[in-house]
C-alpha cells in the first residue's frame, strides 16, 4: 500500500454536455428542440421514438453549431465527421443505442485537441486542453411516482430524446475547484456569444467531473446539476479522497453521484462487469467530409467571441480588463452595456453602473427567482423592462449629480416594476437630489436637535456619526447627497467640539 502525502497533485477533468438550444428541431428528426414544459411524450415522432423502419435525418445546422463551438475552443476540425452507435440497454434510450461519436478508430468527432485559456486566474493564466468535442443525441428522462426507492416501476418521457447535445471532454488539467468554476463560466459565455445554447435553461448544460489525487484511481462524479454544485462536488471529492489517502485506505475507481441535498458524493450502484458499448459506425448516416473552405466560411460567419470582446472593451471603451471580463462573462450584461453607450457616451460610468449596481440587484433578484420557480433564465423578465436607455439615463443622472446612487437604486426597482424611464420617475417623485447646503441644513439641524445624545457621542465615536447620517437620509426620503450630508455633520461636530472646549 502506498501512503501518500496530502499535497499530492490533484487532477480534475470535465465532461460537459451542452444542448444546442438554439436549434429549432432535434438532432435526427423534425420534433421541436424545445421540449421543456410539455406534456410527457407529446414532443415525439416515429424517428425519435425509434419506431421500426425509421431512419435518422441529420440536422445540418447542428453540425455547423458544433463546428463553430469547436473552433471557438481552438479544436482541430476532423476531416471526416462520422457518427457511431453506442450500444447499451436503458429505458430512456428508445433504440437501445445512442448515436454519438467515437475516436478510438479514427478522428471521427467534430473537433479534437482544443484548448481554453483561463486568463483571469488571480493575475496568472492557465490553459485547459480539450480532448474532443462531439455531437450526440440526448436520451429521454425517467420519472418515478414517489421516489426511486419506493416506486414499483419507472415512467419514461421521451420528449427530450434526440435533442442535439455537444459533449466536451477536457484533459485532467484542473488543479482547483475554482478553476473548474472559471472554466464553466467562460464556456457558458462562449455558448451565449455563439448563440447556440442558452446555459440558463434547466439541464441545458450538464457536467460530470473526474477527480484523482497522486497515483490513485480516478473517481467519476455524475449527476451534478449546476455550475455552483460542480465546484462543491469537486471540492468535496478532493477532501474525501485526501482523507482516505491519508489514512492509507484504498481509493476505488468508481462512479459516484452528487447528492445536492446533502452536498456529498455517494457511490453509484456497482456494475457487475465493465460496460462494453460495442461502438461501430452508424450505417444510416454517411460520413460528412469537411472541406477546409466550409470551415473557413463558418469561421467567418462566427460572431465575436468573449476574448475578442474583452479586448475590444478595454481598447475602445477604456474599461479595466476586470470590468470588461465581468461584463462579457454574461453576454446580456455586455450587450446591455454596449447598447447603453449609444445613449450616453460615458462608457466607464455605464460599465460601473452595470457591474456594481445592476449586477448586484440581478443576483439578488435572480437567486430569489431560481429558488422559487426553478432556473428558467429569470433575469429575462428584468431585461424586458430595463433597456439600454434606462441604464444610460440612470448613469447620466448620477453623473450629473441630479440623483445619488441610493436614489438611483430605488429608481431601478421602480423601473423593473413600471418600465418607466428614470428621468420620468425622477420628475414624478421630485427626486432631484437635496444637494444645496441650505436645503439640507434644516434637516441636519432637526436631526441634531432630536438626537442630542447621539450627537454628543459623535464627538468621540465615528459610529454615532453614521447613525446620524442614516437619520438625515431617512428624513430626506433618501434624496440627500450622503457625501454632502456627512461633511455637514462632521462640520457641526467639529464646531461643537471647538465650541465646547
Amino acid at each position, binding site marked *: 500500500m502506498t501512503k501518500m502525502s496530502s499535497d499530492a497533485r490533484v487532477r480534475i477533468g470535465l465532461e460537459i454536455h451542452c444542448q444546442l438550444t438554439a436549434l429549432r428541431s432535434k438532432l435526427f428528426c423534425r420534433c421541436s428542440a424545445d421540449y421543456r414544459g410539455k406534456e410527457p411524450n407529446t414532443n415525439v415522432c*416515429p424517428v425519435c*421514438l*425509434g*419506431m*421500426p*423502419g*425509421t*431512419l*435518422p*435525418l*441529420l440536422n445540418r445546422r447542428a453540425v455547423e453549431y458544433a463546428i463553430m463551438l469547436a473552433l471557438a475552443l481552438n479544436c482541430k476540425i476532423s476531416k471526416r465527421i462520422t457518427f457511431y*452507435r453506442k*450500444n447499451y*440497454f*436503458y*429505458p430512456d434510450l*428508445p*433504440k*437501445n*443505442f445512442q448515436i454519438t461519436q467515437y475516436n478510438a*478508430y479514427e478522428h471521427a468527432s467534430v473537433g479534437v485537441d482544443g484548448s481554453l485559456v483561463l486568463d483571469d486566474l488571480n493575475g496568472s493564466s492557465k490553459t485547459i486542453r480539450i480532448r474532443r468535442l462531439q455531437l450526440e443525441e440526448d436520451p429521454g428522462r425517467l420519472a418515478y411516482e414517489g421516489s426511486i426507492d419506493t416506486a*414499483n*416501476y419507472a415512467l*419514461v418521457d421521451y420528449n427530450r430524446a434526440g435533442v442535439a447535445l455537444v459533449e466536451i471532454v477536457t484533459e485532467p488539467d484542473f488543479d482547483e475547484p475554482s478553476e473548474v468554476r472559471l472554466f464553466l463560466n467562460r464556456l457558458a459565455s462562449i455558448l451565449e456569444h455563439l448563440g447556440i445554447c442558452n446555459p440558463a435553461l434547466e439541464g441545458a448544460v450538464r457536467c460530470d467531473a473526474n477527480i484523482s489525487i497522486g497515483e490513485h484511481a480516478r473517481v467519476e462524479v455524475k449527476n451534478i446539476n449546476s455550475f455552483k454544485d460542480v465546484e462543491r462536488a469537486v471540492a468535496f471529492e478532493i477532501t474525501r479522497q485526501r482523507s482516505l489517502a491519508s489514512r492509507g485506505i484504498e481509493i476505488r475507481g468508481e462512479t459516484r453521484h452528487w447528492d445536492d441535498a446533502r452536498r456529498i458524493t455517494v457511490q453509484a450502484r456497482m456494475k457487475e462487469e465493465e460496460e*462494453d*458499448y*460495442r*461502438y*461501430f459506425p452508424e*450505417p*444510416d*448516416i*454517411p460520413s460528412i467530409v469537411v472541406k477546409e473552405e466550409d470551415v473557413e466560411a463558418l469561421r467567418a460567419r462566427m460572431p465575436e467571441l468573449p476574448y475578442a470582446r474583452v479586448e475590444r472593451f478595454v481598447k475602445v471603451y477604456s474599461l479595466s480588463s476586470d470590468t470588461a471580463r465581468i461584463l462579457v462573462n454574461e453576454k446580456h450584461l455586455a450587450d446591455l452595456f454596449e447598447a447603453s453607450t449609444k445613449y450616453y457616451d460615458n462608457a466607464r460610468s455605464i460599465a460601473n453602473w452595470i457591474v456594481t449596481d445592476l449586477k448586484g440587484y440581478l443576483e439578488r433578484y435572480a437567486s430569489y427567482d431560481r429558488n422559487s420557480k426553478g432556473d428558467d433564465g429569470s433575469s429575462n423578465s428584468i431585461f424586458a423592462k430595463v433597456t439600454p436607455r434606462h441604464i444610460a439615463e440612470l448613469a447620466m443622472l448620477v453623473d450629473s449629480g441630479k440623483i445619488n446612487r441610493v436614489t438611483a437604486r430605488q429608481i431601478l426597482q421602480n423601473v423593473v416594476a413600471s418600465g418607466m424611464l428614470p428621468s420620468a420617475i425622477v420628475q414624478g417623485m421630485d427626486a432631484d437630489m437635496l444637494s444645496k447646503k441650505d436645503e439640507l441644513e434644516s434637516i441636519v439641524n432637526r436631526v441634531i436637535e432630536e438626537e442630542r445624545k447621539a450627537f454628543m457621542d459623535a464627538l468621540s465615536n465615528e459610529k454615532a456619526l453614521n447613525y446620524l447620517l442614516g437619520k438625515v437620509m431617512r428624513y430626506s426620503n433618501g434624496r440627500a447627497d450622503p457625501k454632502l450630508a456627512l461633511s455637514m455633520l462632521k462640520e457641526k461636530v467639529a464646531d461643537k467640539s471647538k465650541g465646547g472646549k
Partner: protein
Amino acid sequence: MVGTSRFALNAYELVNEIKNGSISVEDYIASMFERIRKMDERINAYITLNEHALEEARIVDKALKGYTEWKGYSNGNGNGNSSILLGVPLAVKDNISTQGIRTTCASKMLEDYVPVYDATVVKRLKDAGAIVIGKTNMDEFGMGSTTEFSAFGVTHNPWAYERVAGGSSGGSAAALASCMAGIALGSDTGGSVRCPASFCSIYGLKPTYGLLSRYGLISYANSLECIGLMARSVLDLALMLKVTAGSDMQNDHTSIDADTSLSLDPESISPDIKGMRFATIREVVESEGIDEPVRDSMLDAISSVEQLGAIVEEVSIPSLRYALASYYTIAMAEASSNLARYDGIRYGYTEEPDGVAWNEFYSTIRGNFGSEVKRRIMLGTYVLSSGYYGRYYMKAQKARALIRDDMLKVLKDYDAIMMPTMPILPPRIGERVSDPLRLYNIDVCTVLANLAGVPALSIPYSMYNGLPIGVQFMARHLDEPLLLRIAYALESARCDKVRRCII
C-alpha cells in the same frame, strides 16, 4: 376476361384492362381475395391481408370514371407516375412499414405492431395507384434464405409444395408465382429478393444501394439491405422501378439523388444485347457447391445470351472467397444493434413490467425472438465486443472493400457479371435449417451485389423436373436499365420455355 387467367395478367396488361373499363378494380381485388382464401392455406404466402383493400379499390374505380382517354405508357413520362399502376394488387413483405396494417417481420416480437406511417416506397406505389393487398411471410426480420424461420409458419413453394419458396422474401415470391398478387415488394440484404425469385420463377431486382429509400424498411443490416422489386414480367419491373426510384433526402440520408431520368420507360427498353460483354466468375463456376442442374442451366444461359449477340468471358476474383464471412459478420453486427430496440417498452410484444427489474424484463421479452434471430444477435454482439472489433468487424469491412473494388474493376471491363442466382435447387422444407453453415453457404452468389452495393437481377431461366432455376446479372451502380434490357432480351427469346406463374 373471365376465369382464373386474369390473375396471371402482367401488371401493365392489368392496368390497361382497368383503364379501358374491362375490369373493375373492386371486382378484381375481391376475387383476388377469394383466390387467396382458397390457395393460401397450402402456400402460406400472407401473414396479414389488408382489410381496407376493397375500400381503396372503390376509390380507384371512382377516380377512373373521371378518366377520358388512356394514352399508353408515354403518359408515364416526367411527373406522370400518378396512375401507372392503377389498381394493381401489391404484396408487401412484412418488414416494410404499412400505415394501419400490422407489420410483424414474421416475429412474435412485433405480432401486434401497427406502423403509424408508410414506407416511402409503399407510399410511392400507392400514389401510383397500386393497392396493398396484404403483408407477406418471410424469415423473421429477414434472417434466412428459406422462409422457414417465421413465427407464422413456413411458406411453401407453389411449384412444389414440399419445397421452400426461398427467402427471406418467400411470401412475396410465392404470392406472385401463384397469382395471388400482381407485383410485390421484398427486401434484399444478401439475396432475400433474388433467392425466392429464383426458386419461384419470377423476377427479383435488388436495386443499387440507395436508389430506393429504405425509410420504413425495418432494419436488419442497414449497410447491405435494399427494398427489392418483384414481378412476373420485365415491363412490370420497369414500371415499379420508375415509380419507386429516386432520392428521399427528407427521410433517408442513404438514398441516392440519382438522375431520375434513368430510362425506365418500358417502351425505351430494348431487347437488344448485341455486343454486350458479360463476365462469369471462375471461382463461382468451379465451385463444388453448385448443383449439376444449376450448372447446366447456367451453361445454357451463356449460350443463349451468346446467341443474342453478347460476348461471355470468364474472369477470376480471388477475393470472393471472403464474401460470405464478410457478409455475415457485417450483417450480424448491424443486426445485433438494430434489434436492440425490441424491448417491450414502447411497442410490440410486452409483458407486465410492474416490480420487475429492467434487465430481467429485457431478458424475458427478448426471449421471444426466434432461434435464428437469437443466434445472429449473439454472434453480432460478439464480433462488436471490445477486443474483437478489429479481429472481426473491421476485418470484414476491409474484405468488403476489397471485394467491392474487385467487382467494380471487372464491371469496368464488362457490362455485367453473370452467375446462377442460387447454387442449388429449392430444397425440401426442413432440409437445410438444421445446419446453419450449410444454410449460409447457399447465399454465396447473392451476397456479392450487397457487399458491392451494385444492382442485381434474378431472371427466371429454366425448369428442372418442375423446379425453377434462375440466372443472375449484376451491373454497375445505377445501371438498372441495362439489367432490364438483358432480362427483356431473355424474356423475349424464351417466352415459350419459361413459365412465371402457375394458375
